[in-house]
């Protein structure tokens, strides 16, 4: 296999890996919106909480299992508290109030994290048994840890599919996404359903954060940059649709990764190296937004609109 093809394959896998991370966030965001009608900007904070809890635990105990547990528990717990204390009061409000209140939560969580852990990024090692790479194809080695992330993400996607299609909770979730008033009128304990869905969304956000820890640096503000990318995913996929979230996430992940990998190189052929890198990075960052604009021109409700 030529080096060019090997590089492309590696970048594609990187794209899928970013995609599944985005999916874990987008699934929660889109469900929470589809069922409760709430736009939650603080979803990215839960990602950050998961990452920090896992990073701190891993550093303190050295146990990846404890780190996993801590990351999940912290994100779910913080998520439930946020739902109980703030979001629950916002279900009946308009989107503007929801945006502002959750914007306030972001400031609180970010600055709170600075207070607790400082502004320096934390670095997390890949767990012992997961270091190194495997040969996925002749001539193409790929890190085990990243493969694991892809596997976990796809596993969660399958699990969510089964949960939504095959269980009673899933039935309510589906019904809730399309006929919110009807589910309410049928006397389902909607509060419990809300808390469960929100907890699940928080858990997935935390999972995404703790898995991303060893790849990215764990730092304040990590939640927002990925949150905005997640918005792009949700808009492209169609709000309220988990299938759309998966499709949109992988699409955005791959497009973003490939642009970042190749655009600076292409620009370097026409301009100076450092400028090409900076402009390339900028253009690559813009790429997914242009993709979103194109999708919206064709389909204003996204690729898989849940509300027909």
């Amino acid at each position, binding site marked *: 296999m030529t080096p060019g093809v090997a590089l492309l394959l590696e970048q594609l896998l990187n794209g899928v890996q970013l995609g599944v991370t985005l999916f874990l966030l987008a699934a929660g965001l889109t469900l929470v919106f589809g069922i409760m009608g709430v736009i939650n900007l603080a979803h990215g904070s839960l990602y950050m909480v998961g990452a920090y809890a896992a990073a701190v635990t891993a550093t303190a105990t050295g146990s990846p299992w404890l780190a996993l547990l801590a990351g999940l528990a912290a994100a779910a717990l913080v998520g439930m508290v946020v739902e109980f204390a703030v979001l629950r009061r916002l279900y009946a409000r308009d989107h503007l109030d929801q945006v502002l209140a959750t914007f306030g939560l972001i400031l609180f969580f970010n600055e709170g994290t600075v*207070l607790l852990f400082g502004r320096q990024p934390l670095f997390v090692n890949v767990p012992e048994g997961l270091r190194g790479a495997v040969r996925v194809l002749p001539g193409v080695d790929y890190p085990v840890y990243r493969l694991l992330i892809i596997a976990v993400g796809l596993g969660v996607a399958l699990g969510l599919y089964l949960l939504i299609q095959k269980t009673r909770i899933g039935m309510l979730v589906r019904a809730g996404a399309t006929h919110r008033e009807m589910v309410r009128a049928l006397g389902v304990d909607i509060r419990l359903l809300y808390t469960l869905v929100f907890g699940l969304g928080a858990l997935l956000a935390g999972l995404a954060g703790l898995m991303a820890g060893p790849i990215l640096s764990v730092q304040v503000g990590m939640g927002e940059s990925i949150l905005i990318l997640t918005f792009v995913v*949700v*808009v492209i996929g169609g709000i309220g649709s988990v299938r759309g979230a998966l499709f949109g996430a992988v699409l955005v992940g791959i497009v973003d990764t490939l642009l970042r990998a190749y655009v600076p190189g292409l620009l370097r052929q026409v301009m100076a190296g450092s400028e090409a890198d900076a402009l390339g990075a900028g253009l690559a960052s*813009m790429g997914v937004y242009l993709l979103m604009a194109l999708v919206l021109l064709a389909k204003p409700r996204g690729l898989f609109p849940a509300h027909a």
Partner: protein
Amino acid sequence: MRSVMKDERAWAVLLLALAAFVPVVAPMLDSPATVALATRIAIYAIAASSLNLLLGGGGLVSFGHAAYYGLGGYVVGILYAHYVSGEAFLGVIPGSNDLLVTLPLAILVGGLGALVIGALSLRTSGVQFIMITLAFAQMLFFLFVSLKAYGGDDGLAIRRVAPVFGLNLRDPATLYWISLGLLAAWLFLMDRVSRSRFGRVLAGIRQGERRMAAIGVRTYPYKLVAFVIAGMGAAMAGALMVNQARFVSPDMMHWTKSGELMVMVILGGLGTLVGPALGAAALVTLEYTLSGLTEHWQFILGPILVLVVLFARGGLMGAVRRIAGMRGRAPDALPAGELPAGRVQPGDRAAPDLPLREGAAPHG
């Protein structure tokens, strides 16, 4: 007198007149930072008021308003950079350090940016619209971060600005009065627009798009025009801010700036004339005070925002209204400000008070 208290325009004129004395009073209080702070408030008031045209006027929750604010700022910054280097922008447009050139151009570019982004974003509505306006603003943010020729992450400094009508813009009081004058002009425009035919359609769109369609109004062009006007206002504010700070950077279009502008609108009173200006004053002062107390002031500001949203509906103007109109008919029974014209006139008060909400009848 009460009717005067209830007319927001009277409030606006009174507050602007009082504000004009800030540079006179500030030296007496021995606080030189006050004029600069007041200038920032006046500039933010323009930006917040322009956003209010969308949020409060048309019910369009744009979460990317900082994009136009930043665009306005960069027009000033980039033209200045070309003025200094002597090379024309794109080889065509000569640089300038004259506010009389840069400000209109900034407004134009802000309007064009809003036209393009609005044309795409307004194909959606509701939560998609929020996310898309945010995403487009981030896109511009990344673009300017990557433009190394214009400072990239670090931004551009603006040093020597030409005098305007012989007035030195480096004099804080002069810049303040210019900003305040533009704020007054902008508020006057907003007042006229909100009462005009266009403003009525916009208010109708906020209250019920379905109704607007049923009376034969295609809402898209109205929303787009509102979006462009708002973008122009934000760009004007951005251009002024760059003159005040003598600096422009991508931070001006960061999404948190869009959030702050929204906060100002809500804090002051959504859909009111004076509210966004009061909100700007409140938030700038709050930030200034809190940051004087602790480096981690956002840790306090965040929960304050949550509490304001949850418990202080109507914002500062709502509170003012409740106080000013205590003995009359509850003016806050009308959400989103804007007393329907005709009801504000004193003569109408003579009509016997009709019972409120007699129709508790089912809606169908």
